Every structure is written in C-alpha cells, then in structure tokens.
C-alpha cells in the first residue's frame, strides 16, 4: 500500500496562523488516496479467506468503492459497489476508476440518493446473497462486527503516528488530534492508539459537516443499519435527510464507537459548514503543497479556527485522509479554480 504515510509540519500554515504548531498526517499519500485502502484491503482478505467469491460494498465519496474495486481485482473477487445516484454524478472520477477496475457500480435511486440509501441497498443485497457474498460496510457503521472490521483496519494510521511522534518529539507530546467525521472510520483509525491517554494529554476532536452532524448537534440515539447510534431523525423517528457538499459526510448517522467516545467525554465533536471547508481548502492549498479532498477540508477548517488561540508548544495534528482530485469539479464550481 506504499508503506508508512508521511507525517510532517506545515511550516507556512503554522507561521500564518501564529499559534499552535500544525502537523499533517498525510494519509492521502497511501496507494488508493484515502484511509479506505486499509479497510477495503482487510475486507477483501476476509472475503477471500472465507471462501466467498463475491464482495459487495457501499460508498458515498467513492473512496471506499474505488479501494474495494482495486482490492477485489487484486484478489480475483467479483465486486459490486452500491452508490447513490447523486453521488455517482458528483464523484465521477472515482466512479470511472471503479469501472476501470472491473467493479459493477449499482446506482441507488431511492430516498435521498446518497450514502444512507446506498448502505441500505447494499445490506439488502447481502441479505439476499449471504451464501456467496461478503459484505464490506464502507465505514465504521452497521452491526457490531462490521464496525470492528473497519475501525481495526484503519487503526494502522495511529500505530504509525505514534512512532512518528516519538521520532519527532522523543515522546508523545501534548496533542490535539483533529479528524473529520462522516461515518467516522478515519477518525477511529487516527485515534485508536491514543484513546487510553488522558484527554488533557491527547485531545480528540471530531469535525462533522454542519448539516449532517448528529454528534455535535445533540441528535437523539436512533437505530439505523443494525446499530444504535447518534443519528438525525424527525419527530416520528424517521431518518432525516442531510445536506453536505461532501458526499463522504452526507450521512445522518455516526459510528456507535463515536457515540461511546462522546458519551464518555473522551472526544469532543464540532462541525464546519460547506463554506468553511472551502475556505480552509483555499488557505491550505495556497500555503502548502497538500491537496485535501472536501472531507478533510472540514478538519482543516477546525484546525484554522483553533490554532491562533493556542500557544507555540501546543501540537495540532490533522488527518489529511483523502486526496482532493475527486472533488476537482466541485472546487472549480465553488471557487473558480483548482490549484496545481
């Protein structure tokens, strides 16, 4: 998968904001362009090991779909990716990739035509084909075992980061780990090794999309896709529609593991709007060489908000969990350009 993903200081951004040191764990440098590579590979391995020939997964931003398609191709598995029709049109580069890798992309046109419906449809497919198909749930959501498969796969990120921190600082310094939250798979991987630390030592900050923010807007616990979780619903308990420019965050629920971290006070959750994420992308790409996708741009937005309020020896680490090219069209529409 290309080995350890890089960890480096963003000197220009740090200087520009004039507060905390800002570091980047650039997970987008992985082969596959996002943390979903870990999770997709592990799912394909499980599928192979269990003797099943078919693998089915859901995807919103297309990062999981793309990585699952690649892993399936490598391991000679037949792959079906379920994706909302709204997401198929806004994440076209990833859809093309899936097709090229030989996966079948199944368009889901029900409900909001986004991730939530893709997950439902994928689960229906699995229920009807569980004798020969492995279900690869695209995030740390769904029934117990699926979120474990996901969160344990992505935890490679924090295993690397721990070593990299010790190499840079000689110890684990006082930290704030900032991560975007859709379903919550990248954050759980980014935080896993640090959950046992005191929160005064390592603070965990999750950033949701403003109109898809069950954890940071006091949504109620609801049952969705086989698990109790914080989830946006209406008064009758029906699952609410969400709105985000970012397909990967356009999901009403959240990982039950994040619910646990919220309830125990171990992590805190906030959110950023489309506008704030775009502004963050603009600033980051002006000052630095990284090109985050819309999803981590939300985490960068919180970093930009927070850094000036902190001191020089405070360390902020942001998980840059996805490459921006998949959102090129959206950035051009919204900002008028896509940086080189």
């Amino acid at each position, binding site marked *: 998968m290309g080995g350890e993903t890089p960890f480096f200081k963003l000197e220009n951004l740090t200087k520009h904001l004039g507060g905390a040191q800002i570091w980047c764990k650039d997970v987008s440098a992985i082969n596959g362009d996002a943390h979903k590579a870990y999770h997709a590979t592990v799912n394909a391995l499980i599928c192979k090991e269990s003797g099943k020939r078919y693998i089915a997964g859901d995807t919103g931003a297309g990062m999981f779909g793309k990585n699952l398609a690649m892993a399936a191709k490598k391991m000679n598995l037949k792959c079906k990716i379920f994706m909302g029709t709204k997401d198929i049109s806004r994440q076209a580069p990833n859809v093309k990739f899936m097709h090229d890798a030989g996966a079948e992309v199944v368009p889901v046109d029900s409900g909001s035509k986004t991730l939530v419906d893709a997950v439902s449809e994928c689960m*229906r497919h699995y*229920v009807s084909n569980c*004798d020969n198909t492995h279900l690869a749930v695209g995030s740390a959501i769904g029934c117990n075992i699926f979120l474990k498969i996901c969160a344990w796969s992505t935890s490679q990120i924090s295993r690397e980061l721990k070593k990299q921190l010790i190499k840079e600082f000689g110890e684990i310094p006082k930290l704030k780990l900032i991560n975007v939250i859709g379903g919550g798979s990248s954050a759980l991987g980014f935080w896993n090794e640090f959950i046992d630390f005191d929160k005064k030592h390592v603070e965990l900050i999750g950033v949701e999309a403003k109109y898809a923010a069950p954890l940071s807007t006091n949504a109620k616990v*609801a*049952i969705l896709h086989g698990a109790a979780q914080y989830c946006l*619903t209406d008064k009758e*308990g*029906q*699952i609410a529609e969400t709105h985000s420019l970012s397909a990967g965050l356009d999901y009403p629920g959240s990982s039950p593991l994040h619910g646990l971290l919220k309830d125990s006070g171990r992590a805190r959750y906030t959110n950023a709007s489309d506008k704030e994420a775009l502004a963050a992308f603009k600033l980051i790409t002006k000052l630095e060489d990284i090109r985050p996708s819309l999803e981590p741009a939300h985490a960068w937005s919180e970093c930009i908000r927070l850094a000036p309020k902190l001191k020089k020896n405070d360390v902020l680490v942001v998980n840059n969990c996805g490459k921006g090219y998949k959102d090129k069209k959206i950035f051009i529409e919204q900002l008028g350009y896509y940086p080189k």
Partner: protein
Amino acid sequence: MKNSIKNAFKIAKKENRPAFISYTVCGDNTKDKSLQILNSISNDLDIAEWGIPHNCPTADGKDIQNSSYRALQNGIKLNDIFNLVKKFKKTKPSKPIILMGYYQIIFNYGERKFIQKCKASGVDGLIVVDLSFPDNKNFAKLCKKNSICFIQLIAPTTTIKRMKEIIKSSHEMIYMISTISTTGSALKYSIKRIIKNYNVIKKIKPSKNVVIGFGITEKTISSLRSADGLVVGSAICREITRSLKHRQNPVTNVSKLVRKLRNKII
C-alpha cells in the same frame, strides 16, 4: 379476544388449510384507502398484518419500499396507525391484527408507551424485523405481560442451536423466512427445501404455529399449503402500485387478488 391469534390457527386447522395472512402497509396509499383495503379483504383473511412505514426499511424489497414511501408521503404517523387499528377492530373485533415494523420507530416512541398504545387500540401481535433474538427478550416479555404476541423470526441461516433457543422463548406464532432475500423477491430455494426447513422447526416444537413468508405469490402459494400459515405481502403491495399506476381502484383489485390467493389454499 385474548387468544385471537391462537383461535385463527385453530379454525384454519379445523378446516384443514393454512391460516392466510396478508401484509399491507398502513397508510398506503392514504390512511382511508389502507383501511378500506383491509376492511374489504378481511373476510378472506385469518390474520391481518399491517406494516408501520419506515423510510429506511432495510429488510424490504422494492414493492414494500414503494408502499412505505407512498404512506409516508401522505403523512401517516404512528398515532394515526393506532387510530386506524382501533377503527378496524371496531368493525372486525375478532379478526386478529399484527403490526410489523422496524425497531427505530418503537424505540423513538418509547417501548412501554408503544405497547400500551397497541393494547389500547387492539393490536394482537407484533413483528419487529430488526430486533432479533436475544436482543428482543425484554421487549417480548413486555409484550406477553400485555397479552400481545411477540412473533420471533427464524431465517434460513439460523442454526439449529439458535433455533431451539428462539423457539423456547417464542409465543404462539413464529415467522419463518422462506429464503435468503429481502421481502418480495423470487424464491431462491426450491419448495422442497423450504418445506424441509419448516419441518425442522415444527419437529422441535410441534405445538407452535409456524407461518412462512417472503416471496410467496399466486404461483407458489398452493405448493406451501402444508404450513400452519402463509403470509403474502409484496404481491399485494405490487397490486396496489399497479392499480394506482393504471388509475384503477386498489380496493377492488386487491380484494380480487386476495380472494384468488385464498382460493388456492382452501
């Protein structure tokens, strides 16, 4: 009326036929229409099953999804469903009615309040498709305390060990899912295999009433008539969709279909 589900099976057995159970979505396509449909078919049914629409129905295929969508679009709420059950029971006090739904809607309403409302409006049984055993133990107990039959599900993938546990904690009726699928797809298993699975359950506890559902249509219903009961859902929902599309009256079309289905098993 306490044992009306049990009675329904008794009557069917006496007549040497399976109990016939329909499934429609409450509020499809409107509140009034769904009650009219149920009233018009109720004489041909042994047990009526009404779905509580949910907008994330992961166990349902296209037909029931469409029905649920229509019902929600027309504004059905849980309290409306209780009122409609009450109205139905007023005209058909001895006809057992089962509500089928997803746990989220019950959880959101509150388990106790939900069961109390069921009891007050005359609901005889409950199927909660995504509250599986053993997570449903407490809820099932609460149902029993309030004289409501909680209907456990057994899937084709359920192991014998688990089956025994489920049957042990089940009430008077058990729902066997015919084949690995969501509601309304074509049967993946042969009739022979389905009957074999059914017999495995019956052998463990012959006194339990086991009904078979999922994928039962005009074509397959008669070959499964040795079961204690048969549920037809998607085929009826599909007829409602078809009727609406052709601007025909779903009430008369559904009654015709249900009569046909019933005639195949008597």
